[in-house]
C-alpha cells in the first residue's frame, strides 16, 4: 500500500473547528449531524474523523466516527448512534445545537476505503449502524458516476432501525447497478417472507457477489456480526485480502 494513497498524504492532521449546520433524525436512536468544516481536504468513503469534546474545566475526550457523506467541499456528515450510557454520543445526538462548534481531525484511515475509479464489483455487508461508512461508498458511487456494481446486504433489528431507509429505497430504484437486500433479526416488516433471523450463509450466498467475481468486500458492524460475516465470506471462497472489515462495540459472544 503506497503512502501517497492517503488523502492529505502524511501532512500533520490538524484539529479543525467544525460547526453544526443541520441535524437530521434517521431512526429513534440515530441522527445525522451536518457539519461545515472550513478547509476540509476531502475524504474517501470509509474514512473516519476523530471528534474531541472539551468541558469548561479542561476535561477532554475523543471518539472516532465514520463519515457518512461523499466528499463535498467543506460539508461533512456524521451519523451518530446514541449509546444511552455513553459519554460522547448522547452529547452529539442531543445537546450539540445548530451553530455550535465541535473539534475534529481527519480524514483518518486508508484501508477500509473504496475508490470510485475501482471497477471491481463490490459487496457491502452492514450490521446496524455499520451502514454508515458503507453508505458513504454508495453515495460516492452515485456522486462520481461510478460504474462498479454494488450489492448491499443490510442487517437490522426492525424496520424502524433501518438508517437511511428512504434514501436506500430511492437509490436502489435510481442507481443503476446497486442492489439492496435486508435481513431483519428481531421484527420483519409486514409481508416479509420468513421469520426474523440472523444473517446466514444463504443470505450471503444469495445477495453478495460470488467469490468467482473477485469482488471487494466491505463488512462493518458489531464485532460478533463482522466475525460471522467474514467467516462466511471466507467459507464461500473469498480471498481474505479482499475482505475488509471494521468492527465496533464490545467483543463478540
Amino acid at each position, binding site marked *: *500500500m*503506497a*503512502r501517497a*494513497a*492517503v488523502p*492529505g498524504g*502524511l*501532512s*500533520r*492532521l490538524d*484539529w479543525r*473547528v467544525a460547526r453544526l449546520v443541520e441535524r437530521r433524525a434517521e431512526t429513534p436512536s440515530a441522527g445525522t449531524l451536518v457539519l461545515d468544516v472550513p478547509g476540509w481536504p476531502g475524504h474517501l468513503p470509509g474514512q473516519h474523523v*476523530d471528534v*474531541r*469534546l*472539551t*468541558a*469548561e474545566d*479542561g*476535561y*477532554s*475526550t*475523543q*471518539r*472516532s466516527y465514520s463519515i457518512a457523506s461523499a466528499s463535498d467541499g467543506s460539508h461533512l456528515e456524521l451519523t451518530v448512534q446514541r449509546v444511552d450510557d455513553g*459519554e460522547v454520543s448522547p*452529547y452529539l445526538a442531543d*445537546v*450539540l*445545537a445548530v451553530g*455550535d*462548534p*465541535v*473539534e475534529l481531525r481527519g480524514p*483518518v*484511515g*486508508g*484501508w*477500509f476505503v473504496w475508490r470510485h475509479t475501482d471497477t471491481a464489483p463490490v459487496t457491502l455487508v452492514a450490521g446496524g449502524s455499520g451502514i454508515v461508512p458503507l453508505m458513504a461508498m454508495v453515495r460516492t458511487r452515485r456522486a462520481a458516476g461510478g460504474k462498479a456494481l454494488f450489492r448491499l446486504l443490510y442487517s437490522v433489528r426492525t424496520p424502524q432501525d433501518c438508517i437511511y431507509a428512504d434514501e436506500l429505497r430511492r437509490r436502489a430504484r435510481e442507481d443503476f447497478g446497486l442492489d439492496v437486500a435486508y435481513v431483519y433479526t428481531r421484527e420483519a416488516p409486514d409481508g416479509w417472507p420468513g421469520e426474523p433471523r440472523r444473517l446466514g450463509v444463504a443470505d450471503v450466498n444469495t445477495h453478495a457477489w460470488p467469490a468467482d467475481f473477485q469482488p471487494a468486500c466491505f463488512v462493518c458492524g458489531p*464485532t460478533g456480526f463482522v*466475525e460471522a460475516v*467474514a*467467516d462466511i*465470506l*471466507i467459507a464461500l471462497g473469498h480471498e*481474505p*485480502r479482499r*475482505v*475488509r*472489515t471494521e*468492527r*465496533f*462495540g*464490545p*467483543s*463478540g459472544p
Partner: protein
Amino acid sequence: MGIVSPGFHGRRSASTPKLPPGQYLTEDFPVLTAGPTPRVPTDTWEFVIITETGQRYTWNWAQLTALPAQTVTVDLHCVTKWSKLGTTWTGVSLDTLLENVETAADYALVSSYGGYTTNLPVEDLLDGQAWIAYRYEGEDVTPAHGGPARLLVPHLYLWKSAKWVRGIQLLHEDEPGFWESAGYHDYGDPWREQRYQGD
C-alpha cells in the same frame, strides 16, 4: 486545550491517573482487525526471526511453549481511544527469544499470519517490554484476540501488538508496516498521543 464544547461536562467519575491523554476506559475487550480473523492451528504454527544478514531462527509451538514463560499484568491502549487496564497475559519474553540471535539491527518489522505488519525499534522489544503471548487471563488467547500467539508491547498503542504473530524481520532501516503506511505514527507512544504521522 481545545475549544470548549458548550454544555459538555464529560464523565470523570472514575479516577483515571493511568489513562493516557484522549483515552477512555473500557471494561470489555473490543476487537479491531482490518480483515477476517485467521485461524492458525498450533501444529503448523511457526515463529521466525530473520536477522539483517538473512539468518533464520525458528520455533514451533512445542519449542515456544517449552521456553520459560512470564505472566504479566499490563494496561492496553488502543489508538481508537479505548484503554483496558490490568490485563494479564502469559508468554515468552522477547529477551528470551532474542538472547542468542546475532544482530546489530535497530529496527524490527513484525509480520502476522494473514499478512498484517507493523514496525518498531528493536530496543522496544527488549528489557522486559515485549512478549509473544499465548494465554490471556489464564486461558488460551482466542483467534479474535490474536491466538494462538500475539505480540504484546503494552507501552505502545495496541496496533503494534501484532495479532497472529508469525515472525520478526530485523532491519538496519525502519520500514513502515500496515497501519504506518496508511498514515499512523511510526512509533505510537500513547502518553505522547502519537496517533498519526506528524503527531
